[in-house]
């Protein structure tokens, strides 16, 4: 005898309850993940956004003869302790380069030191009561102001927090990524083409395949050790240079590019290959004229994601010496340089309070670049997505 609807409905209730419970559970996990993300971003923004503001003070600069040897002499004694020493150090050079300045006076906005900056941002600082009063007075007279921190984007690292910026690290990152891309992209794509389109299916190619897949899961610091042993010790590539960093990161990016390129090649339907073979294409012509153009968006997407991964990598670069104090933009691929995450790492180790916001600011810039790159990858994939 078959069951009635009522009987079946009663049984179903339990099943429905169970699925509702699972649904809630999965939504709760999503909520927790989102919460982490929000807390992380809020914390970073909270700590990092002040880094884009910097206290400036309006001072009278009196280019007198004493200032030729000691910059501080050009400033009025009451304001001198508040001005960044980095500016004081510039004054003798300015007079030397332009002797006409001597004997003139100029009113200009200059960086304050980081204590003033931190005081105005409401953080801990080492100013005396008198100094604080002097600053408060100048703030009221609009002689001390918070301005957009261009120094942060136009200067390299410095031991004076108000003078420290990400320029050197950003250029280092770009140079390192150029090396990585130039090495990993052609090798990775050609390897994938060989494995996917040409290689016979035998033990040897299977072993290669397994190894490449494993390579993607190796802790990145091991690539640093490999880079140290091979590139620095064996080939003699200068340490700390974008060259050695780029080569090391290329090793790390290779498996990502190979795997994503193979996936992109595999997603090109066989009917295209068959059609191309049938009109008399050689295997290479099939790949070059028919498969590669269709796989290219996928290859680009994978490469960008691989590159973004390499861009955020610090551990292997510590081993090859790219975590260093680099105040100047490096001019060549063999000069010492640093990269954004390594710069963040350096700043995170500084004891001064002012470097906390530099650290967070650096992270924000890095995050923005990475989000931009990943968004590009997603857009590329969306734009060229094809259905057959």
């Amino acid at each position, binding site marked *: 005898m078959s069951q009635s609807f009522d009987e079946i409905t009663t049984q179903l209730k339990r099943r429905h309850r169970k699925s509702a419970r699972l649904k809630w559970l999965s939504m709760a996990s999503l909520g927790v993940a989102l919460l982490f993300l929000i807390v992380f971003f809020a914390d970073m923004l909270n700590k990092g956004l002040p880094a884009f503001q910097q206290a400036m003070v309006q001072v009278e600069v009196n280019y007198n003869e004493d200032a030729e040897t000691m910059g501080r002499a050009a400033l009025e004694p009451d304001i001198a302790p508040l001005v960044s020493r980095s500016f004081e150090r510039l004054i003798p050079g300015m007079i030397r380069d332009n002797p006409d300045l001597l004997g003139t006076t100029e009113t200009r906005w200059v960086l304050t030191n980081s204590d003033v900056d931190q005081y105005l941002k409401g953080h801990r600082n080492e100013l005396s009561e008198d100094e604080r009063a002097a600053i408060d007075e100048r703030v009221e007279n609009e002689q001390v102001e918070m301005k957009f921190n261009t120094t942060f984007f136009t200067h390299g690292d410095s031991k004076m927090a108000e003078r420290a910026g990400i320029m050197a690290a950003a250029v280092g990152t770009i140079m390192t990524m150029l090396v990585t891309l130039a090495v990993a992209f052609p090798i990775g794509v050609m390897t994938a083409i060989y494995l996917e389109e040409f290689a*016979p*299916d035998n033990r040897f190619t299977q072993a290669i395949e397994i190894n490449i897949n494993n390579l993607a899961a190796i802790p990145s610091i091991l690539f640093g050790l490999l880079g140290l042993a091979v590139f620095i010790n064996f080939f003699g590539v200068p340490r700390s240079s974008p060259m050695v960093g780029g080569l090391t990161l290329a090793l790390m990016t290779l498996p990502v590019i190979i795997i994503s390129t193979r996936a992109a090649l595999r997603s090109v*339907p066989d*009917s*295209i*290959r*068959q*059609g*191309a*073979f*049938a*009109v*008399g*294409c*050689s295997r290479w*012509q099939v790949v070059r*004229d*028919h498969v590669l153009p*269709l796989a290219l968006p996928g290859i680009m997407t994978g490469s960008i994601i691989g590159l973004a991964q390499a861009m955020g990598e610090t551990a292997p670069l510590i081993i090859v010496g790219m975590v260093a104090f680099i105040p100047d933009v490096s001019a060549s691929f063999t000069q010492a340089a640093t990269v954004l995450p390594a710069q963040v790492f350096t700043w995170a180790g500084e004891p001064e309070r002012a470097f906390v916001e530099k650290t967070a600011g650096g992270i924000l810039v890095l995050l923005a670049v990475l989000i931009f790159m990943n968004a590009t990858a997603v857009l590329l994939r969306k734009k060229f997505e*094809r259905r057959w």
Partner: protein
Amino acid sequence: MNSQVAEREMTPMTSQRAGQPVTRNEQVNHDLSVRVRDLNLWYGENQALHDVNIDVFQKTVTALIGPSGCGKSTFLRCLNRMNDLIRDVRIDGLVEMDGRDVNEPKMDEVALRRRVGMVFQKPNPFPKSIFENVAYAPRMHDLVSRRADQDELVERSLRDAGLWEEVKDKLHQPGTSLSGGQQQRLCIARAIAVQPDVILMDEPTSALDPISTATIEDLMDKLKQQFTIVTVTHNMQQAARVADYTAFFHLGELIEYNDTKTMFSNPYTKKAEDYITGRYG
């Protein structure tokens, strides 16, 4: 492999089985295009073709019929060595074209495919413009160099494929934007653009609607004035309509090869008769 079979004077219609003629011996007025003798093919351990002997004649349509999995598509792909693309395939026997064994080591499969074109079951135009679909292969084979020659060849091929009037104003739109039937005719234009001798068609109409199918059938009738056509079909009416000769395959064997009229009116073998009258398949 039976050497006697290979050396025996093969009458145009003959069985694949030694000493077991299954067709009437009729006088044939066509020249030989492809001669196949004792063709065996294995996919790994599986033998897919057993001692196939067949003569394909120039400027005729030959239809290969038979139930699914009978080896007709496999046989078709032996003629332009598309089976080379599949792993673990072993081929034994003679497929002779223009006095050469197509499987001999010296034969370049690219040269072979230049002379033996192919149209597939599912239309597979390249995801390029209509113009490029046709012009690509001739340019690759250096058949055309000047721009004007190329334009002329594209127009001629599209005209021969009966597609010119429909696409002449949108040659630079993607080939994939056409309807299924148009795409298939584009694939035919692509195949004939390199002036092959033989065109292989692997169930060319099975993915198409009846009207497109009729168009393609008419086209095959016209194209056989220039080309030798070998087509696989599941549709026996189609074979009866378009083919001059029909070959019936069953379980990897060529059971009967006959002129179409005889095959459908008075087949020599019981198996062919049963299949044609719909008793199995």
